[in-house]
């Protein structure tokens, strides 16, 4: 019965994939009945932790009045770095992330001590005395990436991606442009803040309920800080109230503090951050500074690009290395760059350590390409879309203009036809003409338009992370339980995996339940990140389900003496050739009695990947996801206010597993990316010699503005491209988590287009991101000065 699976046995099953299905928890979300970590019933004796933060960007800890904090009402314990039983480090890659500051403070929001108290309020109150009880001698600080880079301060060696002789290509090109600009960072602003609840268990073991995208890493880091083995620590996550990358590595500090306190006090300890502390302690999307130079011909075709990208890594490496790798691997956008010379520097600043955020450097890389083509078009007096189309990758069978700078052929390229389709359905040319007419007669308001393409590589750059495991149990009543290594943060991963399993077993979706991610079930998992959640875990769960199905087929074929190919599963029924027909449940009961194993593990490793990080070449991506968006905006040239009038999106989800969920990812990514590039501005106290220098000033939703319902455009047309994924992905679907974040480049460049119209498109508006009203008005004023 347990012989190897032959896929040829498997008849096509009922359609459970490729259809709209509501999120598996939607009925719970709307009733407030979906528990998040802080909603779990608290065990008797539960204590609460809060963190005392440094308040100074860089300095030496001279004194800490621990007694004063310990004497405050409700305080049970006060912990510092000296109280960490194992290693005081929660760094995901390098060991440069202290859980609690040890001697030196590296950023103003760095936790120095933890207060454990009987109530959360008592803990917060006591921790809030940090600035009074800590004496920190200030040291010189680097507060911007450019400043740190100039001083040679980096968290990692610089990276260099090169193809051909960019210098000569630029010098020999008929036209040359150069520029510098900045793109700001972005707070994840998951609605559920960071939270961990650690419960001591028998024999020094520890269980941690943690809002995390990476339970395995939390397990390893908690074990390390407690001086335990991985099997001593169990980490569980049923769902997150949003992650967006912010709970990939940076949930660790909180899991570790809760676990250290729980281990020491042998009481359950919960650490749930106040929103302001969450902003100040954790890192965000890296802001980038760019210097670039490009050579191009009369038509606008790029001959060569040289670029320097400097990211604000913050005080430690965290994931800044892989983020820069992805940035460099995406600075081509959807365009063929014959010659490239690009440097990536991860600058060490005395600010929170920046980390993963949806797109993971990809958006910061691709933004450069769009900036360059935008300026080439303006320099040549051409429509930007014409220059964009001219530079798009070709198909490999058409020309050699189809290989990325890192050597991966773009063999699944659909960008040219996708862009052409959106140009047509969005009525780009008619809009362009209407906008020109509007702008000619409108003295204050100016409209702008842009259509930008997306090409995004799918897979972790680091090859070995591209693996996943799953467990599928079939119970005697025919119900199915699935567990896999991916985490649910709202993206609908559990829904998609349940669909895949239901499809594989031919049972109704309602018969499949997906359970909390748990390191005791599937071990050694990768983060749910890099958009790979359903690609990896869907395949692993399918593998497990197909193994069970294979056993059921073999059993039925043997039992009823029919050809295995005649055993079919559909709609919860099983047809065994002409011999029998029964419910799935009846077959399961019969198989159980015959002692057939009704549960299985499953495993998947993405094939064909390679990456040489020394030469920055290889085939890091299983496939590319494509998309395009067209945005039309109106800008007020007196105030810099602007509004998105229309957005049209065409996005490639391959053969979508669940179009409703994928549309949700596309729309959500669009609006989130729009926030990044427009209203979401991070401001730090400037280096003015005061102790406040380097403190984040925008540390709450009162001061940091993510989009609201009124920012969703009235005309918002989002469609999925119809076409299979060329790579053999789960049911030929494509990942949709990150790529849509790049779609609202169209919003930014439409704003720039509107500003540009003020001077008849004769000057490149010096517009950085985020394009706040102030940034827009500054750019308007700059181009206004251009003589007609």
């Amino acid at each position: 019965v347990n012989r190897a699976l032959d896929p040829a046995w498997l008849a096509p099953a009922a359609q459970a994939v490729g259809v709209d299905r509501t999120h598996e928890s939607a009925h719970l979300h709307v009733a407030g009945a979906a528990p998040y970590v802080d909603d779990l019933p608290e065990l008797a004796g539960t204590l609460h932790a809060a963190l005392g933060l440094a308040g100074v960007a860089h300095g030496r800890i001279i004194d800490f009045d621990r007694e004063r904090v310990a004497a405050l009402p409700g305080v049970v314990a006060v912990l510092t770095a000296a109280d960490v039983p194992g290693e005081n480090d929660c760094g995901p890659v390098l060991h440069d992330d202290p859980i609690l500051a040890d001697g030196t403070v590296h950023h103003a929001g760095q936790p120095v001590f933890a207060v454990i108290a009987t109530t959360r309020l008592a803990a917060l109150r006591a921790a809030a005395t940090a600035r009074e009880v800590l004496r920190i001698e200030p040291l010189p600080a680097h507060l911007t990436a450019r400043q740190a880079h100039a001083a040679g301060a980096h968290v990692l060696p610089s990276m260099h991606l090169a193809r051909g002789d960019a210098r000569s290509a630029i010098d020999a090109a008929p036209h040359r442009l150069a520029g510098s600009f900045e793109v700001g960072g972005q707070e994840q602003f998951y609605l559920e803040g960071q939270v961990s609840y650690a419960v001591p268990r028998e024999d020094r073991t520890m269980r941690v309920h943690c809002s995390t995208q990476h339970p395995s890493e939390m397990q390893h880091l908690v074990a390390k800080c407690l001086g335990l083995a991985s099997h001593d620590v169990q980490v569980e996550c049923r769902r997150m109230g949003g992650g967006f990358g912010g709970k990939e590595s940076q949930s660790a500090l909180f899991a570790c503090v809760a676990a250290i306190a729980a281990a020491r006090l042998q009481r359950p300890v919960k650490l749930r951050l106040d929103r302001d502390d969450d902003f100040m302690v954790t890192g965000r999307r890296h802001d980038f500074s760019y210097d670039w130079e490009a050579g191009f011909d009369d038509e606008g075709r790029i001959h060569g690009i040289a670029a320097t990208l400097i990211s604000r890594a913050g005080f430690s490496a965290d994931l800044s290395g892989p983020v820069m790798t992805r940035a460099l691997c995406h600075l081509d956008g959807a365009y063929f760059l014959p010659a490239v010379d690009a440097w990536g520097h991860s600058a060490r600043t005395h600010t929170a350590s920046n980390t993963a955020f949806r797109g993971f450097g990809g958006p910061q890389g691709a933004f450069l390409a769009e900036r360059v083509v935008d300026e080439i078009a303006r320099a040549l007096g051409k429509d930007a879309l014409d220059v964009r189309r001219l530079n798009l990758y070709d198909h490999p069978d058409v020309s050699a203009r189809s290989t990325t700078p890192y050597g991966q052929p773009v063999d699944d390229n659909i960008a040219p036809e996708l862009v052409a389709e959106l140009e047509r359905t969005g009525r780009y040319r008619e809009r362009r003409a209407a906008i020109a007419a509007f702008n000619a007669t409108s003295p204050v308001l100016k409209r702008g338009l842009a259509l930008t393409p997306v090409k995004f590589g799918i897979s972790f750059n680091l090859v070995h992370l591209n693996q996943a495991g799953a467990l599928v149990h079939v119970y005697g009543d025919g119900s199915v339980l699935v567990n896999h290594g991916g985490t649910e943060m709202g993206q609908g991963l559990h829904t998609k995996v349940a669909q895949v399993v239901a499809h594989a077993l031919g049972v109704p979706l309602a018969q499949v339940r997906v359970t909390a991610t748990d390191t005791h079930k599937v071990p050694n998992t990768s983060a749910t990140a890099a958009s790979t959640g359903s690609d990896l875990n869907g395949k692993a769960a399918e593998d497990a389900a197909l193994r069970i199905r294979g056993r059921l087929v073999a059993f039925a074929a043997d039992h009823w003496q029919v050809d295995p190919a005649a055993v079919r599963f559909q709609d919860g029924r099983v047809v065994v050739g002409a011999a029998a027909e029964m419910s799935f449940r009846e077959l399961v009961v019969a198989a159980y009695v015959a002692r057939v194993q009704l549960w299985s593990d499953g495993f998947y490793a993405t094939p064909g990947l390679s990456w040489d990080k020394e030469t920055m070449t290889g085939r890091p991506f299983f496939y590319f996801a494509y998309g395009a968006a067209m945005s039309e905006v109106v800008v007020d040239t007196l105030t810099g206010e602007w509004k998105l009038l229309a957005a049209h999106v065409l996005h490639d989800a391959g053969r979508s597993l669940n179009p409703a969920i994928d549309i949700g990812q596309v729309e959500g990514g669009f609006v989130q990316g729009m926030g990044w590039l427009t209203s979401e501005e991070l401001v730090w106290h400037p280096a003015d010699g005061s102790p406040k220098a380097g403190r984040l000033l925008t540390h709450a939703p009162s001061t940091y503005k993510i989009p609201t319902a009124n920012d969703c455009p009235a005309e918002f047309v989002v469609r999925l491209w119809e076409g299979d994924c060329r790579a053999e992905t789960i049911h030929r679907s494509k990942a949709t988590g990150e790529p849509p974040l790049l779609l609202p480049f169209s919003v930014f460049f439409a704003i720039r287009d509107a500003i540009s119209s003020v001077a008849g498109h004769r000057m490149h508006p010096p517009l950085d991101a985020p394009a706040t009203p102030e940034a827009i008005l500054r750019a308007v004023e700059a181009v206004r000065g251009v003589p007609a």
Partner: protein
Amino acid sequence: MATRPIRFLHRGRTVEVSAVATTRTVLDWLREDAHCTGTKEGCNEGDCGACTVAIGAPALSADDPNAVDGLSLTTANACLLYVPALDGKALFTVEDVAAADGTLHPVQRALVEHHGSQCGFCTPGFVLSLWVAWQRHAARGTKPSRQALADELSGNLCRCTGYRPILDAGEAMLDGDVAPGRLPVETLLGALAALADDTTFVHTHAGRSFVAPRTLDAFAAERLARPDATLLAGATDVGLWTNKQFRDLPELLFVGGVDALKRIESVRDGDAAWLSIGAGASLDAAWRALVARWPSLEDIWLRFAGTPLRHAGTMGGNVANGSPIGDAAPVLMALGARLVLRRGDAERRLGLDAFYTGYMQNRLQRGEFLQAIEVPLDGPGVLPAVRAWKLSKRFDCDISAVCAGLAIDVDAAGTVRAARFAFGGMAATVARAHGAEAAAVGQAWSEATLERAMRALDADFTPLDDLRASARYRRLAARNLLRRLWLETRLDAPLRPHETTVWHREGAEA
């Protein structure tokens, strides 16, 4: 004075609470004491809406826009609501929305069917905001427009969906039979009547007190007796003192129990009519009354905080608090408003433009309080053209970098007869731009005059750099707002609002 437990309706029964701190928030009470964890904490400062709940109280007037058959039903941020403030009210949370047998409410069904939740953490807050709108519309047989829904949801942040499916759900939620989802208003009003109490309510805990007089005279007497007490209305600012700064507030004197302070009415004083806005009237009610008279104020009404904050906060609180970036004062100054101040039995009146003396400082005397704001409705104090514009990074629920209240009277010959230009965000207090006004008054309303006024504005204010904007932007944008006013009010070829602002809504009044 009644010292007794706090009494309110929750989950279909009367709850009595005694042992809570005077500043314990309804959010903490729900999650930690009542073990109702459906209501979420996202920010604990009233800006994200994850903790949105609904509050019901008997409607004070027949034309209460929030009334659902006599029950005034509004959203509130549970994180900025102190438990004692619930006394005599009904509290509704996400646990109350589905039927007792678990059948989802039409609002919940619509959200499920339109894929309106992803991570689900903000969802209970959206459910409550939509549910309140649903109850209002179901009672009247109306449906909200998509624009009205977006405005309704201005206090709810969602980081996952991009809002489109939530708005779709809102448009569809009233499609079916509304009868099963409606509140049993009569039963609720009966239960609330049983909680009514005409005497001053006092809640004490751990030596701290919360005092809620019910009449204006009682309030005035308490204010005189407790001059150091913290005045509490919507707690939209005071709540931050306790939630974020952990400040100790020994005495709270609550405005919200005095119905007389919530009155908004026309009063006559001599020959002139004035709109009197009681200091306890909600921001939403106050703005609504102003917009009824000056439709050009609609934008600033809808952009003032988010919907739940506008229902909780008061215009009196905004004015008395005196923040230089409060959006009510510049508009009221432009309208020529005056304040009614009361101390014991004595009343006095003071122009709003003379009220502020420095950063968060004003002319209130010890034991005195703001009783009402009066806005001239006719007579020479009324300038015909009124505009109010705020500049911020986001349209909804943001704090202004600059807020301008501008009023001007240009005669038929094109001469400026009078002008009031008031600005927030430009100085330590909201203030009038006397130099710019002087440059305009008596002059032809020409571009040359405008430019003189714009230059004068530079001398009127010395704004600061902060996280919202630089001083440079504030100066430039404030000047440009004067230009916008001129473009719209010049006699020769004035521009219409759809030509001067990106926010103009189709079909909206000029």
